[in-house]
């Protein structure tokens, strides 16, 4: 999905090794101008490492970071024109909101009039004008996040990096802020990388998702591609809640069926016994026992249960994996 020519951000065989431990292993990735890519994965998967390598905060052991065809790898963080919003926001506690925003401009020698103009614009955009004299300690979590974002935007960056920018906010605020964040950050001309461990956030923020595990890229694609056509068992299990059922149906083959693709009926290929029922309002989750192991089924809240339920599904929803390597096996399996 590389954009026309060399435009955008390209990571080429990017790797980092510390003390013999491989944190990131030959990552290839492109982000088009204006595109928002979510870097998703469990903690320790290498997503923050990737971000730090793009920012230049840590040196790469192998590979290159290219922006619009130019090599950023030898440049210092300050020279890369990269902005980053940190998980902790990293606001300077001793400076006011204004001071936090101005420091970078001052140091780079931007003239006072120009500084005021840009500061005014960004304060306006993020509705921070009234808070400009406050210290970070006097701000709420959401306000701090806005200041951190303002500081990043003020940089007029060529690349925008966001490192779990919402993980310090409570769930409700997070959901409220997501569209605002998207509006402010995405759809400008610079590529955006958004690091998160939360798949909902990734789906909500990003055009494409890159899923990492153990320092390796597992799959890149739209949320729909990753959900419907996972490259391997890790991808299948990481995306989708409640998680996919992995059933040992035959030696050497493992069947993945998502809870929302299973249904219960009088007739069906596999028998099941109901253990527990979780009622969520718009749906209910059924915990069942089957000859292939425990199974979760997601169905409508009012769906009646047969006395002797049997599991059924459509063959198009079957995902087959190698039980040892977790690799995706294409073609249909025996049932």
């Amino acid at each position: 999905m590389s954009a026309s020519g060399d435009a955008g951000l390209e990571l080429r065989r990017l790797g980092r090794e510390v003390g013999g431990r491989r944190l990131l292993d030959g990552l290839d990735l492109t982000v088009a101008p204006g595109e928002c890519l979510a870097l998703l994965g469990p903690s320790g998967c290498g997503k923050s490492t990737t971000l730090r390598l793009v920012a230049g905060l840590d040196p790469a052991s192998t590979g290159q970071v290219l922006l619009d065809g130019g090599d950023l790898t030898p440049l210092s963080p300050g020279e890369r024109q990269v902005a980053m919003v940190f998980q902790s926001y990293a606001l300077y506690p001793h400076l006011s909101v204004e001071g936090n925003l101005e420091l970078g401009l001052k140091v780079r020698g931007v003239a006072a009039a120009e500084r005021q103009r840009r500061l005014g614009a960004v304060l306006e955009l993020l509705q921070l004008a009234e808070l400009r004299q406050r210290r970070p300690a006097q701000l709420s979590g959401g306000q701090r996040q806005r200041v951190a974002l303002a500081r990043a935007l003020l940089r007029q960056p060529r690349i925008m990096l966001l490192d779990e920018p919402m993980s310090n906010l409570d769930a409700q605020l997070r959901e409220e802020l997501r569209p605002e964040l998207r509006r402010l950050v995405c759809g400008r001309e610079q590529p955006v990388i958004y690091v998160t461990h939360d798949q909902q956030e990734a789906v909500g923020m990003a055009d494409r998702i890159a899923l990492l595990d153990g320092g390796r890229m597992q799959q890149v694609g739209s949320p729909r591609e990753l959900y419907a056509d996972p490259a391997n068992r890790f991808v299948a299990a990481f995306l989708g809640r409640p998680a996919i059922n992995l059933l040992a149906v035959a030696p050497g083959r493992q069947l993945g069926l998502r809870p929302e693709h299973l249904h219960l009926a009088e007739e069906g290929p596999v028998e099941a016994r109901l253990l527990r029922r979780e009622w969520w309002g718009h749906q209910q989750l059924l915990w069942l026992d089957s000859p292939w192991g425990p199974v979760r089924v997601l169905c409508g809240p009012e769906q009646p249960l047969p006395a002797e339920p049997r599991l059924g599904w459509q063959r198009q929803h079957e995902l087959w994996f190698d039980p040892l390597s977790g690799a995706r096996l294409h073609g249909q399996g025996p049932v």
Partner: protein
Amino acid sequence: MRLLVLLWSLGPLLWQLRTSLLRPEALLAPLLEGNPWTLANYRLVLSGDPPFWRYLGNSTLVALATTVLTLLLAVPCAYGLQQQRGLLRWGVGLGLVAAAMVPTVLLFLALLEIARRFDLANDLFALSLPYAGLSLPLAVLLLRAAFGDLPAELEDAARLEGLGLGQRLRHVLLPLMGPALASTGILVFLASWNEYAIALTWISRNDLLTLPIAIARIGGGSVFTIPYGAFAAATVMGSLPLLLLVLLAQRPIVSGLTRGAVKG
């Protein structure tokens, strides 16, 4: 209970103050008898030649020079050390602890030789060199810990904004280390203020003596009369600048403690 602790800490100081205000003969008299108060001890100390203020000035000068020099050297050392990882940082840290524990007594003969060789005797600024050297290990250790307490992302953010090392120290790191700098500075100042052995051997000119030496030289009429009152008066006056220093530094330290609670 609080009163008891307060008395425990302040008792000796108050006793010193009382001694400094008593006539010599009243020292041995029962408590609260007659009207023994006098300022004679202070008059005696202040009328010396050179006047007592001179020694106060000397000590202040040496202590200030020592503190400034120590902090100037310790800040970059501490920052550099904090940037290191693993064995190197641990090893250097251990070496600094060892250096901080070497007793001065073992050094002062060697230091005397150095002073003679490089003509450093009878020079107050030169005296701050060994003082700074002796204070440096502890100062580096304290400041390294303070650098370590700052969130690493703060400096990362500053690096991304294009701040060079000097700018990061000046605009971001050091302003946040006010409390650590103040307390380290006070420790260094105190060590220099109280130092005896090196000052005794490096300074011989009467008008350049530092306080501890000057106080020790206050003599009585004979070896059998010890001028307790004069000692006490000199000690009280010698402590006043320290009191002032701590009172001044108290505010940044306390306000810094509460500011440290801020996350991000």
